[in-house]
């Protein structure tokens, strides 16, 4: 039935079959005959491993065909275009157990192979109404098209293979969280300073008995920290997807049999999330509006807003995991250079000021706050026997004398944990609460002692201006409908 085409042969019997520039017999189309769906999938998997289907897509059709004997096979037709393309397709078909043909409309002859470098020509054509006539060196067969196969539907029906290695792949992750978990997950990611975007996607109800659509949180995280991978992969209700091409992503831990990146069948404006375990894929036709994770951070308001004060407590609890404690210590006092005199004791300080020696007054600095006076003296504060003494454990960080901080962290660590901005002097109380005083507020004690009482500016005015009367103005009001109602002359006139 088939004969090999010889060199420089110009006359061919098969309709629609011609010779390209290399002399290879080539029709307008190429056809791959595959015995089953799994062979088709294998063909796609092999082909897309190295090449994209993008150039084949405009002409790609797949059909389930049926022979006269009732056997069903799969055909894949593409535009032949060139022998180079057909060579690749034929090699791939051979690899997966398929056969390659070429032709134009109904008659397809076997594509060239090693035995016939210029291809084959059918010397006797079959006379039949079948939709497809294939001529092979081992058989000639007719087929009728039973149904068409959609590539996109096929890809979505394929169950991905288990492949734990995809969980370790770096890069972008799409995370879908059930509605109840989304807020907590977002808060966790915000707290962990993970950057990303978040939106809410909706799917139709699972059944007619459900009134409301199914909503899930969709997160796009450019880089998931390694420590969070297990959380995102193993937490029920949270599904992590690895992007597998424009508009497609496959659940982490699975790999799609076909390289989806080479199959441009998904709309990049949306996303198809292919799930493992045989679950149906989640299709999002159009990505919902997404906002930065930080916009969804949990908002908390302080319950007791306090007025601004010179001295404010440093909020250390958020950054220190273990609550800080200040406990009594038997260690000897060293470097006692500050004291905190509460407002009730300020009169004593004023009285004591008359008795203080000049060197003490000269060296000491004081900051007056609404919580009392804070005195510092580099040479030691013992000369002013008032208030609570403090030891300077770190520059601008004071701990009550006779106390120590637990856990026994280094002063540098403590200062860093308290997070006081530069220019603030921290006094850690025995209740582990810190008071920050602006360093600029400390003025020499001698200047503070001699400060005049608070004064206000009195604007001098000319005495005439101060005594000026407010201007008089005559204002007009409504006279009403009866302006003379109740207006009567004096009684004697009436009488």
């Amino acid at each position, binding site marked *: 039935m088939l004969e090999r085409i010889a060199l420089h042969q110009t006359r061919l019997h098969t309709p629609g079959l011609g010779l390209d520039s290399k002399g290879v017999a080539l029709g307008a189309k190429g056809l791959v005959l595959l015995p089953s769906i799994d062979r088709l999938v294998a063909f796609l998997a092999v082909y897309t491993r190295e090449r994209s289907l993008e150039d084949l897509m405009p002409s790609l059709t797949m059909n389930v065909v049926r022979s006269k004997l009732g056997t069903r096979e799969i055909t894949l037709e593409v535009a032949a275009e060139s022998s180079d393309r057909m060579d690749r397709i034929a090699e791939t078909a051979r690899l997966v157990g398929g056969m390659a043909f070429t032709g134009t409309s109904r008659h397809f002859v076997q594509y060239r192979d090693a035995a016939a470098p210029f291809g084959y020509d059918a010397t006797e054509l079959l006379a039949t109404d079948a939709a497809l006539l294939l001529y092979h060196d081992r058989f000639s067969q007719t087929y009728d098209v039973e149904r068409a196969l959609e590539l996109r539907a096929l890809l979505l029906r394929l169950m991905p293979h288990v492949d734990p290695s995809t969980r370790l792949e770096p890069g972008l992750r799409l995370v879908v969280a059930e509605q109840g978990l989304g807020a907590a997950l977002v808060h966790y990611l915000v707290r962990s300073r993970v950057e990303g975007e978040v939106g809410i996607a909706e799917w139709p109800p699972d059944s007619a008995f459900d009134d409301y659509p199914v909503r899930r949180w969709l997160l796009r995280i450019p880089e998931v920290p390694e420590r969070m991978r297990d959380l995102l992969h193993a937490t029920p209700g949270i599904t992590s997807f690895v992007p597998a091409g424009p508009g497609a992503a496959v659940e982490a831990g699975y790999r799609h049999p076909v390289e989806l990146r080479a199959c441009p069948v998904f709309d990049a404006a949306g996303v198809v999330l292919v799930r493992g375990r045989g679950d149906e894929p989640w299709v999002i036709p159009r990505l919902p509006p997404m906002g930065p994770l930080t916009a969804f951070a949990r908002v908390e308001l302080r319950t007791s807003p306090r007025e601004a004060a010179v001295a404010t407590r440093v909020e250390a609890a958020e950054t220190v995991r273990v609550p800080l404690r200040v406990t009594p210590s038997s260690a000897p006092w060293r470097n006692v250079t500050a004291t905190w005199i509460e407002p009730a004791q300020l009169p004593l300080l004023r009285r004591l000021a008359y008795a203080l020696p000049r060197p003490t007054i000269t060296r000491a600095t004081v900051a007056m706050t609404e919580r009392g006076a804070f005195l510092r003296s580099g040479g030691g504060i013992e000369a002013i026997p008032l208030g609570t003494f403090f030891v300077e454990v770190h520059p601008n960080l004071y701990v009550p004398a006779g106390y120590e901080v637990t856990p026994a962290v280094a002063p540098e660590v403590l200062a860093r944990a308290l997070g006081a901005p530069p220019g603030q002097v921290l006094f850690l109380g025995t209740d582990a609460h810190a008071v920050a005083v602006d360093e600029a507020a400390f003025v020499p004690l001698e200047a503070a002692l001699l400060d005049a009482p608070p004064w206000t500016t009195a604007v001098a005015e000319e005495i005439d201006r101060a*005594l000026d*009367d*407010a*201007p*008089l*103005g*005559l*204002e*007009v*009001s*409504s*006279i*009403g409908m009866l*302006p*003379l*109602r*109740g*207006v*009567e*002359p*004096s*009684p004697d*006139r*009436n009488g």
Partner: protein
Amino acid sequence: MADPRALASRLFQDVMAPMVLGGPVRPGHAIGARAAQELAPAADAIDAELADSVQTGRVRRARRLAPIDSLEPASAAEWVLMAALHDVLQSTNPSFDSPLRRGAAARILDLALQTLERVPPAAHVGEALSRHSWLARLFELSRTDTDVSWWTGSRTFRGVAPPARLQAWPELRRVTVVATPRPLLELTPLAVDRDKLVGAVARMLERSPLTDLATCTRAAPAFAWQRTTMALVATRAGRTLVLRSLQRLSGAEVDTVLGKATRALLAGKGASSEPALALLGERALAAAQGASASSSPSNPEAEFARGLGAVCATHLLGERGWPEAERARLLAALGPVSASPAAREASALLPADP
């Protein structure tokens, strides 16, 4: 008739208090002569705090003339006087200037005049000072008329503030707002006869002689010696208060007004002119003591007053026990004025024994 307590409260709050403390004076529904006489018993209805402020303002006003520390609250006569003022002000309401309402304004003004008749003359200097503390700022009263024009029209608001909507988008709508203060006796339009209004104000001043003299340089009603003003300056204390109040006015204008009024008084020959002459004489003496006599530009009436005052002062210097040196100095200062033609003209008009 309206509740006297409510009426008293309204009168005090809208007229009496602003007349002392300043601010907007808002005359309302006319009171009438009958109701005016029932206000004093209802005076306890007024706001006590406001009353304290007003009393303080009155004392402050009075202390410009006399070193007193307290004034009695408004007397019955003062309530009536202020009620009359209220009605006079109400009669100037521009809303009356319509064909069917002018009669109401005239009626209100008539009733105000009737009310004034019920006010007795000030019985003593203290009462005159008390009434002056209420009416001292009478001629400061003015109504602000506002002309608002915009791209498509204009409108005048008399005594009321124009609405904000008319002044919106001033640049786009090319809004122009011109506010013109109009004194009481120059208000326009006026539903009552202007002369009658001036007469009512003059009658009111007659009931407050110290105010009459303290505002003698006003444009209208022109100052003229009245029985009440003569009675005030006839007393030593009253003359002192008047001299102090006149010192706050322009000396030249005061001389002009007093010269004209005294010339008319002397020409009339109907009443005793001695208190007026004494006032002029003491003004001349004060001017001589201050060595500032006749320093300002003058006119015949002012020169007449100064000459008459110098003649009277010379006479006073001769009667009283002045130190000789002081008398000589004052006579020297008065000499040029008393020898002027105006002084000679005044001397000719004087009675035989001034």
